[in-house]
C-alpha cells in the first residue's frame, strides 16, 4: 500500500483512479459474464429438446396410392405437408405461366424434382400467418387460404393476397419413383 501511494504521489504514471477504474471494469465484465452464463441455460432450455429433435427424423411416404389431382396431408416435425400429384393439364398450365406474373418468381422446375414433374411436395401452412389453405380452391388451380385470402397456384406459388412468399418446399428426395423421403435431400453424387 505504501508503495502504491508513493508511486501515485510521484505523479509520473497514471492518475490515482486507474486501479479503481480497472477493478470497476473488471468486476463489471465479470458480472456480465456471470449473468450471461446463468441466463443461458434458461434461454436454451426453451429451444426444441432432444426428444423433439429425435422425433423429427426423416419419414418415408409411399406415393402409389395417390391418384391424379389428389392432395395428401403428411406430418413431419408436427408440420403439415401437402403431397400433390399434379394432372397433366396442371403441369402444362403451370409451365406456361410467365415468371413475370409471380410476386415470388420461381420457375416450374424449381418447384418439383427433376424428372418428377407430377409430384409437388410443399409445407401446408400459408406463408402469411400459418393457416392451412384449402386445396382445389381459388382462381389458380391450387389453394386458397380461408384466413386472410391468400391464393396459391397448383405448384404452391403465391398469386394473390398477403402471403409474402411461395409455400416452401421441405427437404425431400425420391428413394424410388414411388417413394419419397421427407427430411433428407438426395445425396450429392447421385
Amino acid at each position, binding site marked *: 500500500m505504501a508503495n502504491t501511494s508513493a508511486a501515485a504521489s510521484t505523479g509520473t504514471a497514471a492518475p490515482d483512479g486507474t486501479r479503481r477504474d480497472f477493478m470497476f471494469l473488471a468486476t463489471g465484465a465479470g458480472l456480465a459474464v456471470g449473468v450471461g452464463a446463468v441466463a443461458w441455460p434458461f*434461454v436454451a432450455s*426453451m*429451444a*426444441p*429438446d432432444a426428444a*423433439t429433435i429425435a422425433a*423429427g427424423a426423416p419419414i418415408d411416404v409411399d406415393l402409389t396410392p395417390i391418384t391424379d389431382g389428389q392432395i395428401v*396431408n403428411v*406430418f413431419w*416435425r*408436427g*408440420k*403439415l405437408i401437402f403431397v400433390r400429384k399434379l394432372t397433366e393439364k396442371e403441369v402444362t398450365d403451370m409451365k406456361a405461366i410467365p415468371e413475370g406474373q409471380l410476386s415470388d418468381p420461381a420457375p416450374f422446375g424449381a418447384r418439383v424434382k427433376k424428372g418428377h414433374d407430377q409430384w409437388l411436395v410443399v409445407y*401446408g*401452412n400459408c*406463408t*402469411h*400467418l*400459418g*393457416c*392451412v389453405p384449402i386445396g382445389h380452391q381459388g382462381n389458380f388451380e391450387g389453394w386458397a*387460404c*380461408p*384466413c*386472410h*385470402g391468400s391464393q396459391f397456384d397448383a405448384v404452391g406459388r403465391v398469386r394473390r*393476397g*398477403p*402471403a*409474402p412468399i411461395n409455400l416452401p418446399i421441405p427437404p425431400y428426395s425420391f428413394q424410388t419413383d414411388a417413394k419419397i423421403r421427407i427430411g433428407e435431400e438426395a445425396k450429392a453424387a447421385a
Partner: protein
Amino acid sequence: MSAHANAYVPKSRVAKWFEARLPILGLVHSSFVAFPVPRNLNYFWTFGAILMAFLGIQIVTGVWLAMHYEPSATQAFNSVEHIMRDVNYGWLLRYAHANGASMFFVAVYVHIFRALYYGSYKAPREVLYILGVIIYLLMMATAFLGYTLPWGQMSFWGATVITNILAAIPVVGDTIQSLLWGGYSVGNPTINRFFSLHYLLPWMIVGVVVLHVWALHVTGQNNPTGIPIKSSKDAVPFTPYATIKDVFAVVVFMILFAWFIFYQPNYLGHADNYVPANPAVTPAHIVPEWYFLPFYAILRAVPSKLGGVILMFSAVLILALAPWLDTSRVRSCNYRPIYRQFFWLFLAVTVILGWLGAKPPEGGYVIASQICTFYYFAHFLLVMPIVGLIETPKALPGSILESVTGPGKQVSGSGMPAGAAAAPTTKG
C-alpha cells in the same frame, strides 16, 4: 396535493407497536381513506376499481382452474371438459374466468377512452398513463396465452397465427418463434410453456398495477374539468365517498358479468373452440376474441406481412405517445369543442375496425379497414398535434367546486351535465 389533511394515528397499543415497525396501516390510510378525491368525479372514474375487482376475480378463478387443468397437447382439451362436467362448480369457475376476461377488457376500454376524453394522459400524469399502457399490453398477452390453453381449434390456430406474426420480425423472428414453440411447430412444448407464462403474467400485472396506483396517488386523480384540486373544498376524502361509489359501481358491473356467466356463457366465445385442435384443418373463419378485433383489422388492412405486423403493434404503442402528441393546454374534452368531435370520430372508427376485424378479408371490407386504419393513426399523428394548436378552448371554471355548485356566474359553458358528480356535496 398528496399532503394529506388527517394523518393516520394508531389507536391501540398493538397498532402503535406495529406502525413503528412497518407503517403499512398508515400507507393504507393515506392511500384509501384520507386521500383527497376531486368532488366532481363521474362514474367513468369507477372503472379503476372495477378493473381491480376483475384482476382479483381472474387470479382467484385461474388459480382454482389450474388445480384441475392439464397443460398437455393430448390432455388439455379433455381436462377442460372434465372441469365442465365432473368438477364441482367447475362450469362456474371456467365460465367466470372466460367471461371475466371479456369483462376485464370491457372495463379497460372504458377506462382507456375515459383517459383519452378527459386528457388524463397529459402532464403531470404521463408516467401513470404509460404504466396503464403497459398493463394493457400485459393483459393482451395474458388473454392470448389463456385463450390457447383449452386447445380447441381456435386455441391452436390462434397460437399458430400469433407465433407466425412474431416470426415476421426481421433477423431474430425465427429464433423467437422457435423458443416459443419449443419445437418445429405449435405442439406439446408450446402449450406447456404458454400455461406457465399465463400463470406468470398476471402477477406482473399486479406489480405494474401497484406502480400505477402509486403514480396515481402522487399526481392525484384527474377529473371531468381537467383542472387540479386548488383547495380542500374541491376534494372529498376517498373514504367513504369514493369507496362507496366504487363498490356500488362494481356491484352494478357484476350484474352484467353474472348475466353473461349464467345466461350467455358462450356468447363471447367461438363454437369452433369446442372442436379439439387439429393441425390439418383451419377453421373456416378464424377470428380472435372480440377485444383484439380492431388490431386484427389493422393487421389485415395491410397487403404486406411485415407491414401489417408493424402497424398492428404500432396501433397499441402509439397510445403511449399521446402525452406528447397532444399539444392542447386544456385537458378535458368538455372544454375542447373541436377536438371533442374528433374524439367521438376516433371512438367510432375503433368500433368500426372491431366490426371489420370480424368480417372476411375481402372486397369492400379490406378497403374500409384501410380507411379506418389511416384515420386511427391520423388521429394521433395529425389531429392531436394540429387541433391542439388551432383550437380555442372554452373558458375553464375557476375551481372544481365552482364546476359543481356553479356560483360566481362565470359562463363556464361546459355542455356537460355533470349530474353524476353532484351527490357528495350534500354531506360536506
